[in-house]
């Protein structure tokens, strides 16, 4: 069962500021870590893969960073349509849905900063990206890219909350 399948569709509750969701968002991301991330391919079809982004709150808004390969199929998808959709799910059925716009961080100092953000964040969310053979050349190596994710919508969904009558919480930038 999902919210879409609820016999009586419950409304979502919109929050004014991201701060209203932040604690729960951070808690779920730190626990679930991995998400499904959808892009639109060159034939206008959706395509999903599993991703491991990391998040900051900048000027009261969430910003995600995803360490990935700059010359991948998804890079071609994002060049054509920068909109992506993410779902965090785990077996306790606490979900986060994020719709976002993606762009590449190109500045060497930004790539270094995100590399360090992964390294300095406690595990399992944070880790040393250099464990991967393909990133042994570090943040300035040719295989390393950072996609920045700027959300246009964030939803916290939970079956437990739904059963106690609390609608999913939704935040959108003003």
């Amino acid at each position, binding site marked *: *069962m*999902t*919210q*879409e*399948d*609820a*016999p009586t569709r419950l409304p979502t509750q919109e929050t004014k500021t991201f701060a209203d969701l932040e604690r729960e968002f951070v808690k779920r991301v730190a626990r679930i870590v*991995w998400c*499904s991330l*959808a*892009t*639109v391919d060159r034939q*206008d*079809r*959706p*395509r*999903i*893969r*599993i991703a491991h982004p990391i998040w900051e709150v900048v000027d009261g808004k969430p910003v995600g960073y995803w360490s990935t390969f700059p010359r991948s199929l998804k890079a071609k998808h994002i060049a054509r*349509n920068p*909109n*992506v*959709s*993410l*779902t965090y*799910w*785990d*077996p306790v*059925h606490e*979900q986060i*849905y994020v*719709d976002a716009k993606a762009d590449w961080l190109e500045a060497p100092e930004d790539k270094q900063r995100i590399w360090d953000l992964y390294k300095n964040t406690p595990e399992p969310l944070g880790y040393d990206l250099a464990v*991967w*053979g393909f990133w042994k050349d570090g943040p300035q190596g040719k295989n390393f890219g950072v996609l920045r994710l700027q959300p246009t919508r964030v939803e916290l969904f939970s079956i437990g909350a739904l059963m106690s009558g609390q609608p999913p919480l939704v935040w959108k930038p003003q």
Partner: protein
Amino acid sequence: MTKDFAELEPEFTRRVARIVWCTVATIDRKGNPRTRILHPIWEVVDGALVGYIATGRHSLKEKHIARNPYVSLSYWDPAQEQVYVDAKAEWADAPEERQRVWDLYKNTPPPLGYDPGMIWQSGPLAEDFGVLRLEPWRVAVWSLDALANRQPPQVWRS
């Protein structure tokens, strides 16, 4: 890469039966991707994989699929085993097909199977119950261990 789904089938079936829930992406009316969690069920018919999703009618995703029938699914769980399915979706509206998929959910052992009557109290032929049929064009089975060892995913294509 293989054209014979039988090569992936045991691992596909094992993972789906364990993970049960997956993320499903559709393309919205503006051409952008949207994802949600759903609970499909699968059959192999004449050697080809076919999926079904019991779902309410008149949802946002119904509007998406009317405009663009392509969907993309990912199964993942904390054991880091992944299954990807890219498919074309259409409604299976025939009453006998709705009854058959209803029974397939009901007769499959839990947690993959469940009684749809818990959600759709008016039964399989009621107006609010729908069955989306998924015809895959690509299936991939992968794991984090495989990535660490630089092994490519096992891929089937139609």
